[in-house]
């Protein structure tokens, strides 16, 4: 089966803006970009459930809202459970003809890494196992950014955060990043993908595909955070692109069991290009970076084997 492509060029992207301007996200925040593009794909027949986090607090300060679609925020750890309730309600109310049964309504749950991989993981796993037709979007900025840059399960190895400080004994996070999308894939749901806003057409095609499958779907998007990763707010997309160019972040999808890397990288960049532009990795020595490079090489090897051919090439610069 070949991959369905819905958006080939920027001209294919709907003009409609369902995320109103004037929200309070940090200047240069990429989460706003991701959500804006998500809503363009989803359109107005959409209900959004948002876990507590950056996007939630920045877009819904009463009496203002940035959302031109129905939106609900309940708590930090339960977006998937709330979405389950909405999906069940729509199913039965359409059956009883209280909601127009001919209307297809997208239900999208949105959470950050803390809300998804840590505190809300149980609710997410429950929703996936029960098979609710909900798209779950994880915008992963790799720490608790809303509370002020504390480490989360998806913070990468060695990264500085306020709770993994760089001291005389310990320097940054001592554990690996939790492979949350692979854990989600283990639930054998119809569609799981990773995406990168620097490759926005790829990301939007994944959003669309995910809304079209019959059952739960999960999209894990990397979201460089100017505030927490310590880089110039102008270069968020550049940082995102480097993540994929160095294979720190690989864009793949698992569509009904079929695995493919959707953004191939024939010539890979050395990970130092990604590390050295971020303040959170300032303390890394050249040896640390080489160790990290070795880890990525192994990971690239694993993914290439999984695909059965070289989709991510060798380091050339």
């Amino acid at each position: 089966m070949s991959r369905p492509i819905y958006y080939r060029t920027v001209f294919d992207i709907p003009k409609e803006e369902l995320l109103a301007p004037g929200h309070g996200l940090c200047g240069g925040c990429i989460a706003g970009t991701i959500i804006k593009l998500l809503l363009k794909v989803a359109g107005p027949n959409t209900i959004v459930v948002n876990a507590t986090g950056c996007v939630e607090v920045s877009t819904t300060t009463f009496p203002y809202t940035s959302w031109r679609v129905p939106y609900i925020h309940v708590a930090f750890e339960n977006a998937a459970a709330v979405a389950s309730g909405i999906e069940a309600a729509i199913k039965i109310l359409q059956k009883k003809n209280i909601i127009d049964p001919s209307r297809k309504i997208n239900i999208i749950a949105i959470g950050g890494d803390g809300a998804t991989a840590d505190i809300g993981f149980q609710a997410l796993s429950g929703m996936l196992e029960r098979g609710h037709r909900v798209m779950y979007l994880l915008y992963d900025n790799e720490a608790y950014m809303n509370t002020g840059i504390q480490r989360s399960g998806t913070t990468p190895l060695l990264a500085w955060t306020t709770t993994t400080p760089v001291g005389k004994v310990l320097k940054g996070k001592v554990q690996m990043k939790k492979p949350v999308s692979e854990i989600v894939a283990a639930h054998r749901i119809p569609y799981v993908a990773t995406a990168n806003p620097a490759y926005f057409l790829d990301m939007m095609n994944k959003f669309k595909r995910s809304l079209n499958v019959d059952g739960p779907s999960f999209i894990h998007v990397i979201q460089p955070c100017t505030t927490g990763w310590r880089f110039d707010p102008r270069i968020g997309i550049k940082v995102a692109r480097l993540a994929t160019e160095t294979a720190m972040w690989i864009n793949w999808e698992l569509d009904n069991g079929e695995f493919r890397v959707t953004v191939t990288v024939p010539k890979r960049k050395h990970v130092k290009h990604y590390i050295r532009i971020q303040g959170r990795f300032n303390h890394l020595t050249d040896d640390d970076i080489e160790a990290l490079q070795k880890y990525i090489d192994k990971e690239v090897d694993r993914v290439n084997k999984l695909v059965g051919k070289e989709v991510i090439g060798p380091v050339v610069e």
Partner: protein
Amino acid sequence: MESELWKRMPLNSNYAAAYGAKDSDVDVVAAYPITPQTPVVEKIAEFIANGELDAEMIHVESEHSAMSACIGAAATGARTFTATSAQGLELMHELLHIASGLRLPIVMSIASRALSAPLSIWGDYSDVINVRDTSWIILMTSTAQEVYDSIIQAYKIAENPDVLLPVIVAYDGFMMSHTYEPVYVASNPEIFRDYIPKKISWTTLNVEKPITMGAVANPDWYYEFKYQQVVAMKKSYEIVKDAAKEFGKRYGRFYDTIETYNYGNNKIGILTYGGLFGTVMEAIDRMNKQGMQIAGIKLRLFRPFPSQDIKRILEDLKVLIVIDRAISYGAPIEGSVAMELSALTYRESLDIPIYSYIASIGQRTTTEEDIMGIVKDAINLFERGKRVTESIYWGVRQ
């Protein structure tokens, strides 16, 4: 009473709760099993499996998700039901505040149970009393019939546009949840349709009219949202009474915010809640035979506290004995309802001594003899001129 309209069935209070939910024609049920509530979930699953109830059941992975899913479903416009006990209620505690803050008319039955530690699966009201300040309307029932009827009334109350607050219907874990009583169940639940019509009276997530629910409210707005809940809770008092009155008129079974027994010119009153009221009534009969006239008062509505109705009763009494089934640790009066009554008597300048007793904690057996002993003990204190005491722990090994 048995007629074409009602069939008389042996039901425990768990099943009565399930029948109440079914006959309210709920759309979505999200629940998680916990002793002693589990048979509610099982029964509802049976109803759906047999086609007796057309609803979506969400088999959530925790009570936290049960209440979250109920919030999502209610926010979409579904009539929503859940049930829990003890630790389950504690796990949802955070969401209880959110359900009421979002003004969603969810109904939940609680087979009340002691809280861990030490682990106890047995009945007391520690769980229910603990959610006192969550802005849920709380009904505490004494019979399986009352459980069934109260769940139907609960939707009438919750969905009233002047209320839009969630409602708890509580009953004793085990002593009621697992004991059978005859219950009159509607032969055809259609008889409730005019009483609780399916009309979405609250704001919902509607793609034709997008709104934002669960916004952030900073110090310039939060207070007003909370005050609106205060107003709704106050208004709900008359609406609870009206719902009971209309229910009585339509279906012939009458309830109020409180219930009295052997109440007349008696000067000593004994107040409690839940199934224990049955034991109190039995003890009152026995004391009556011994020539002692005692009035029984059952608190049916805990939130909003039925101050006006209780005030009327207290004006006639000389002594009030309160038996609490939960402990408010470190409070000036550790019996939670006794403390509320003390506040009420102070507010209304009523001159009546209140004797606070704690009993049936963790379902420690409390018999008619215990009730008679409590009455004797309180009268003794009263006659010795001791007006107010600390809570007395009846039957505990100190």
